[in-house]
């Protein structure tokens, strides 16, 4: 084997939570490598540690020990401020409940991550219009989240996630709050992001139909990662 590099490399990762005097182990010795352009689904029962693992990869939580390298950067050694800056450019988030800012229009929500960049207003507009066109919502850019359906809100969230052209996209139950048709639409969009734009997606889901869209399905159970991933290539 040569020295193959992965977009995500996780080694000996441990994470636990403290509840009162009790320490509850959530992730136990996780080792995982993810290729660039891969669509990975993480499945497992509630409380198995899926979302915790996703949060650690996305740099919004801290591991007890172990290392996570994303795009060549060891994020486990970054400070909070460095992590915030890293997230802004390297991670796109897709949440179950969309997490759009209700007082901002679709356009403004998508523009939000670009406020942290040095792009001019004109450049930001160009980027936002492209992203909204990609999710087929350019005609709804002036609508507020409350004026959009669940599926449309999730498409806005996807546009927001890809607007900075991040290294990875993380999705936590992206179809969990959607009806069947909308879920199919969102999963189709995510597939397009992988196939047409070469994005790397790590998705947590309970839904086997959603997981089937992924290239690889990995199972977590009681904090332990299944050593035999299902390959859907």
């Amino acid at each position, binding site marked *: 084997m040569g020295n193959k590099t992965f977009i995500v490399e996780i080694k000996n990762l441990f994470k636990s939570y403290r509840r009162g005097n009790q320490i509850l182990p959530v992730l136990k010795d996780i080792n995982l490598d993810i290729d660039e352009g891969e669509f990975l689904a993480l499945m497992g029962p509630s409380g198995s540690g899926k979302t915790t693992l996703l949060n650690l990869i996305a740099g919004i939580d801290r591991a007890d020990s172990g290392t996570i390298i994303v795009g060549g950067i060891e994020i486990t050694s970054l400070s909070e401020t460095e992590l*915030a800056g890293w997230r802004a450019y390297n991670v796109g988030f897709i949440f179950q409940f969309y*997490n759009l800012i*209700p007082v901002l229009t679709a356009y403004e929500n998508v*523009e939000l991550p670009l406020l942290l960049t040095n792009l001019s207003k004109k450049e930001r507009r160009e980027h936002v219009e492209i992203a909204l066109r990609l999710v087929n919502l350019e005609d709804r850019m002036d609508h507020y989240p409350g004026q959009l359906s669940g599926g449309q809100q999730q498409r806005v969230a996807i546009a927001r996630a890809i607007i900075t052209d991040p290294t990875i996209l993380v999705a936590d139950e992206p179809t969990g709050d959607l009806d069947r048709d909308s879920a199919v639409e969102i999963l189709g969009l995510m597939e397009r992001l992988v196939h047409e734009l070469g994005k790397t997606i790590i998705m947590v889901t309970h839904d086997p139909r959603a997981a089937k869209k992924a290239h690889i399905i990995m199972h977590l159970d009681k904090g332990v990662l299944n050593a035999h991933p299902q390959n859907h290539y």
Partner: protein
Amino acid sequence: MHILKIITKNALRHKLRTFLTILGVAIAILAFGLLRTVISAWYAGVEASSASRLVTRNSISLIFPLPLSYKDKIRQIDGVKLVSFGNWFGGIYIDEKNFFANYAVEPKGYLTLYPEIIIPEDQKKAFLQDRKGAVAGRILIEKYRWKIGDIITLKGTIFPGEWDFVLRGIYTGRDKTVDESAFFFQWDYINETMKKTTPLRADQVGWYMIGITNPNLAADVAVRIDKTFKNSLAETLTETEKAFQLGFISMTEAIVIAIKLVSFVVIFIIMVVVANTMAMTARERIGEYAVFKTLGFGGWHIARLIFGESLLISLIGCILGIVLTFPAADIFSSSLRTYFPVFNVATKTIYMDIGASVLVGSVAAVFPTWRAIKIRIADGLRRIG
């Protein structure tokens, strides 16, 4: 999209709550502004006092007179330029409700010493020529609708009897700090009457007003004056006009302190109200702040959002409060003109209003900001849904 746009949109999210908070701040600033103006009005005499004037009174108390003969002795003291004198008259116009300051003065020296009292030349001349002549301030003229030539009768309390004065002049102040509600007349009029009715009380003055050549030498001149009358039957106490005025205020210091305390309590209460609003706001939006942090926005950005909203609300309330303070002060002033003849909203008060609202907005944002910054992103995101 600018951060200010997000702040404005956030502030308008709960319109009723924001409106009520702004109204609360406006009323607090209005109350604070009026209370500070009352305090300023209390000190109006001090503010209007001149550094080049001294006041000499009996060292025992202001109610004990000084001999008229002191005038020439004081005039001869090094550093003294001009000497005038006066007596508090304490007369009542029709009944006791119509209170206004009235006193007898040696007119020529008095009007020279107090150039801030403006009287038209022809009226001044008429006043100086008429022993029974009197001058009233613009506010009294408006209140009692007096006209030049009117006979004004005061009932004496310190100097018994009914005293008729002919209104010869109307004065206005050179600036807003001058009390325009006083009534003064010729000292000779009461002195000559006293010579006839109570000779023992004649040739006595209440206080001397002294113009000095150099304000920097005020303390030395005061010492020289008091030294001149040391071990006499009527020893003197000479002080600057400012110290003389402050002496009056010290008698009512407890009231002034109480008003000051109330003004700060008002600000403290509104600070708690705004802090409560901001705490509610931040609690409701903790999930959104977690989203902002997820997207890469740092603590500084979150702080700007919360502080910005808090300051926006308190500053809008402040502007509204300041705008309301002026008509409210006018109403207050016209109702209590007799007690507060100088009742002007000072520029300093406006600065204090702005300072107070900035303080309120900032302090109210501290705890919600700290909470929003400290919360773990994962915990914040769990609040959504």
